[in-house]
């Protein structure tokens, strides 16, 4: 027994392990390379996530734009309240609204416009091009605007040119590269900044509910921020529709997106590690079998099995330490690479961070995987008997799956899964992923054994090529299990992700555009709606136009309980009850939104509010028919009764509302309109003429939004597909290593065939048949699992219609087959023409 704290013994283990490694490192290249690649992947994703979270935490005030932010919606704060806030520090006022920006000859562009005062930004700075142009927007001589690059490209304007905003002329002062507080439109769409003075002077207004007053404070005395936050909240407590946000919350949404995406990448990375683990197990077992005699000699001299196991395990740990350090150091600099890939307009500058905790995180995961996959191989050492030295008969050992080992492996797998689950919000999906992954591994292993059993039943062959292939597949050292498991998993992952991505892309590029309108009008004043409608119809009498009334409301309570107490941030329908919602009303149910529970209301009854809810949101939020909902509509709390649930499909981007109330009750409310337009006339032409005639009307070109979304999705799926390909690459390395391990065995066989007169084309044919049989078997199951998995994701999670793309499938399968086969051929090149002499001499 090796005593763990016997330093002399530990030194001896260290000496033997280093010596053995230095003299046989070439045999361990598979372990080193696959561990390195998979640890590097993990390190890359962990480092970027850590850097992003650090950036959000360190710059939380810049991201918020102040020590505290107040959003008051369409109504500004009374001057009295503002004056009271000013006693605490500097107050910066900004107004955000949606509007159209246009230039001569180019179609107007839907833009998020921000009007800011000269205190903005309270933290950080506006980065503009040319430098210093941001100051010009506060000019009182001429109204000036900063536009982003997207507007510049769409309107084909440059610095100094004029643009129109709600009919008023502004000169382009420069380009806004980034603002310190995150503006999503600045990143993904069209964004512009003007001075608040220009906004006030021209009395610009979008005419309604897509306008938001925001106030940010920078405390004079930042040391007791908590106290001052409470004072601010008490000042604005008179109106519970006013939202306050603190610096910690500013990056929460971005933080959640980062967490979900990086968690997904981490899972794919650990999948790569597990496949690398298969390679570790296979290589270690071969390593042990190659050292059969040496191990037996050591036992005959008096070394125990434990000592020898510990020695080889220590060697693997040395490899793990080395590869993990190098992988971590490479990965640490991934934030610098991410800076190049992230949009500059995010205003984020990621910094690499080297930390012991970060390294230990990577090392611990690597250690767990190494333990799981090395234990069965190393425990096989106990099966090597020194007594075999006397008989010169050595049986190859196989993986040791004693009961004790199985229990130990199970515990380690649970630890690995739990470790990942604890680091993410998506706990259920993480567990599901691991369970599905290990089940898939078992399935593929079972598949390989099925193939072998199936082929054993066939003995009669007409061709030598098939005979040789058959023998290779059913042999004890067959490639079938390792190829099926390692390539099968990688292929399943790639197919599943590709199917999901393809379905999403098809939805965005084909399905949605076929259903979606061309233009989406936002916030149309009720007084101009009839004129607008007539005007559009004069351009195109065949136009399909739809207008719906709309008012702003916020969710207060459900059955008397404040909604914040009932609905968590992570509820997928939390968006329905957070912040300001737009509600509509109708006398009759919309045929596009069938009622699935409850009844529609009778017309009339202006004294009671009846509510129709989006069914999915209602079920997510735990609502039932006849529940009471309290909404704040234009400053007044109103309680209504849920009468029915509707099925709402938001995919067609037509007018859909989560909350609809009865028209009779709503008639008393002030409202505006939203509308959609579908026409054979160019939407650019219609938009240009509408904006010219009605400067305050804003409209979104749906194809523009879809192309923006497509662009983002494409980038995401390139990253995800790239990682899947790395998983396959690791699988291929594992297969190649298995082939190399079999080289002696196969070379011997091929030599016998050569002596017996079998020619090279026959051997090549045999290899091809062997590969095709194994590949077709694993493809069948990989495809089945990928189809099932992607179907569940697309239909259940994304709520889309799943479609099968034969072309994509064939492309993936054939490419993978070709690359795999070529690599196997290259690995086998030494056995194609084995020399007779060394065999005769038993060398």
């Amino acid at each position, binding site marked *: *027994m090796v005593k763990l704290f016997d330093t*002399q*013994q530990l*030194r*001896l283990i260290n000496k033997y392990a280093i*010596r*053995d490694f230095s*003299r*046989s490192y070439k045999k361990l290249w598979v372990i080193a390379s696959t561990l390195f690649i998979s640890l590097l992947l993990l390190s890359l994703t962990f480092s970027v996530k850590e850097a992003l979270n650090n950036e959000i935490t360190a710059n939380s005030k810049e991201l918020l734009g102040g020590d505290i932010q107040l959003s008051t919606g369409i109504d500004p704060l009374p001057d009295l309240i503002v004056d009271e806030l000013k006693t605490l520090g500097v107050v910066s006022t900004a107004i955000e609204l949606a509007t159209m920006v246009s230039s001569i000859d180019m179609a107007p562009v839907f833009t998020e416009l921000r009007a800011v005062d000269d205190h903005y930004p309270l933290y950080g700075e506006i980065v503009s091009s040319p430098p210093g142009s941001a100051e010009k927007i506060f000019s009182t001589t001429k109204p000036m605007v900063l536009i982003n690059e997207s507007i510049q490209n769409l309107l084909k304007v440059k610095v100094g040119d004029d643009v129109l905003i709600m009919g008023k002329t502004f000169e382009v002062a420069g380009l806004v590269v980034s603002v310190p507080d995150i503006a999503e439109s600045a990143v993904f769409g069209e964004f512009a900044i003007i001075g608040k003075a220009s906004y006030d002077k021209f009395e610009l207004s979008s005419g309604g509910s897509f306008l938001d007053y925001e106030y940010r404070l920078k405390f004079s005395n930042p040391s007791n921020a908590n106290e001052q936050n409470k004072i601010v909240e008490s000042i604005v407590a008179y109106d519970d529709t006013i939202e306050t946000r603190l610096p910690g919350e500013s990056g929460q949404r971005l933080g959640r997106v980062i967490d979900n995406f990086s968690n997904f990448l981490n899972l794919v990375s650990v999948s790569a590690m597990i496949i690398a683990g298969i390679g570790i197990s296979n290589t270690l077992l071969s390593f042990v079998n190659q050292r059969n*005699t*040496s191990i*037996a*000699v*050591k*036992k*005959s*001299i*008096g*070394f*125990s*099995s434990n000592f020898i196991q510990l020695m080889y395990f220590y060697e693997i740990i040395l490899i793990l330490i080395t590869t993990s350090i190098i992988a971590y150091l490479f990965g640490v600099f991934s934030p610098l690479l991410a800076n190049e890939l992230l949009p500059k307009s995010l205003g984020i500058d990621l910094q690499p961070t080297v930390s012991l905790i970060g390294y230990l995180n990577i090392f611990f995961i690597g250690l767990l995987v190494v333990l799981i996959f090395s234990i069965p191989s190393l425990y096989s050492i106990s099966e090597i*008997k*020194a*007594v075999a*030295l*006397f*008989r*010169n008969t050595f049986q190859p050992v196989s993986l040791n799956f004693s009961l004790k080992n199985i229990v130990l492996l199970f515990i380690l797998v649970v630890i690995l899964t739990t470790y990942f689950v604890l680091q993410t919000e998506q706990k259920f999906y993480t567990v599901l992923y691991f369970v599905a992954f290990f089940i898939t591994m078992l399935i593929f292993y079972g598949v390989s054994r099925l193939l072998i059993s199936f082929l054993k039943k066939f003995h009669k062959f007409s061709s030598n090529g098939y005979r040789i292939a058959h023998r290779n597949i059913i042999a004890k050292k067959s490639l079938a299990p390792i190829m099926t498991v390692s390539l099968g998993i990688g292929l399943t992952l790639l197919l599943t992700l590709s199917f999901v991505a393809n379905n999403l892309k098809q939805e965005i590029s084909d399905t949605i555009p076929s259903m979606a309108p061309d233009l989406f009008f936002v916030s149309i004043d009720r007084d101009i709606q009839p004129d607008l409608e007539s005007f559009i119809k004069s351009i195109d009498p065949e136009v399909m136009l739809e207008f719906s009334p709309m008012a702003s409301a916020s969710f207060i309570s459900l059955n008397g309980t404040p909604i914040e107490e009932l609905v968590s941030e992570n509820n997928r329908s939390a968006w329905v009850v957070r912040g300001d919602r737009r509600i509509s009303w109708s006398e009759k149910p919309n045929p596009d939104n069938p009622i699935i529970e409850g009844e529609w209301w009778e017309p009339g009854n202006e004294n009671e509010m009846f509510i129709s809810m989006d069914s999915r949101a209602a079920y997510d939020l735990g609502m039932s028919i006849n529940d009471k909902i309290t909404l704040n509509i234009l400053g007044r709390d109103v309680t209504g009764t849920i009468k029915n649930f509707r099925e709402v499909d938001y995919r067609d981007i037509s007018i859909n509302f989560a909350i609809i109330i009865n028209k009779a009750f709503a008639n008393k409310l002030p409202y505006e309109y939203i509308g959609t337009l579908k026409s054979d006339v160019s939407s650019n032409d219609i938009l240009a003429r509408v904006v010219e005639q009605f400067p305050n009307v804003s409209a979104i070109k749906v194809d523009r939004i879809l192309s923006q979304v497509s662009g983002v999705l494409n980038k995401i799926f390139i990253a995800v597909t790239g990682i899947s390909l790395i998983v396959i690459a690791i699988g291929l390395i594992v297969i190649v290593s298995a082939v190399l391990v079999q080289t002696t065995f196969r070379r011997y066989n091929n030599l016998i065939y050569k002596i017996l007169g079998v020619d090279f084309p026959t051997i090549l044919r045999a290899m091809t048949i062997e590969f095709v049989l194994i590949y077709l078997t694993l493809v069948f199951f990989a495809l089945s699992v990928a189809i099932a998995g992607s179907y569940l994701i697309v239909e259940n999670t994304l709520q889309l219609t799943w479609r099968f793309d034969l072309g994509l499938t064939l492309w993936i399968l054939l490419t993978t087959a070709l690359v795999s086969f070529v690599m196997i051929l290259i690995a086998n090149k030494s056995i194609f023409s084995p020399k007779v002499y060394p065999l005769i001499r038993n060398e």
Partner: protein
Amino acid sequence: MNAAIQFNNVSLSYGSKVDPVEVLKGINFSVSSEEIVSIIGPSGSGKTSIIMLASGLETATEGSIKINSQEIVGLKENNLSEIRRKNIGIVFQSFYLIPNLTATENVLLSLEANQKYNQEEEAKKLLSEFGLSHRLDHLPSELSGGEQQRVAIARALINKPKIILADEPTGNLDSANSQSMMDLLFEYTKKSKTSLVMVTHDNSIAERCDRIIEIKDGQIV
């Protein structure tokens, strides 16, 4: 004189209980301290099995085996390893040097198994005495058969064991090397007052021993 090795009614069989293969049947013999004994017999008679049992690498089906008065039948692997480390050196027919260790490192392995560290000089000294001073840092693949066997003998002797077990130590050597090998083995065995039990087919070697034990069909003749 105390017996170095003592076999009392030792039997060894393999296979199923219904139809076992009986290799040794009721063997009784002992080897005294400093005695040199050869075991001869036809192939399959059980000679090597006696060596295997005496080294503790095989377990007797019946009977008692004592090494320096200590019973080894029924001991666990760790205890047997300890007895083997401290008391026994084994020389195999096929040398069985570790291929990626030098001659010196192969010999050091024995010392380190016995927790004797930093003894490189002693290993080199013994190898030099065996005529291998010019081969100290060579790998087994760089040594001739005779040189390899001398390294194997050095590995067996370095710990000054009380018992050497040799299984046809000259089986893979030519006659010239065989002769010099046996001279070496006998010289150092006598010098270190070690018992030597040797399996051999070579009658000329057997006749040089203090005693010959003849085995036939698993029994001592």
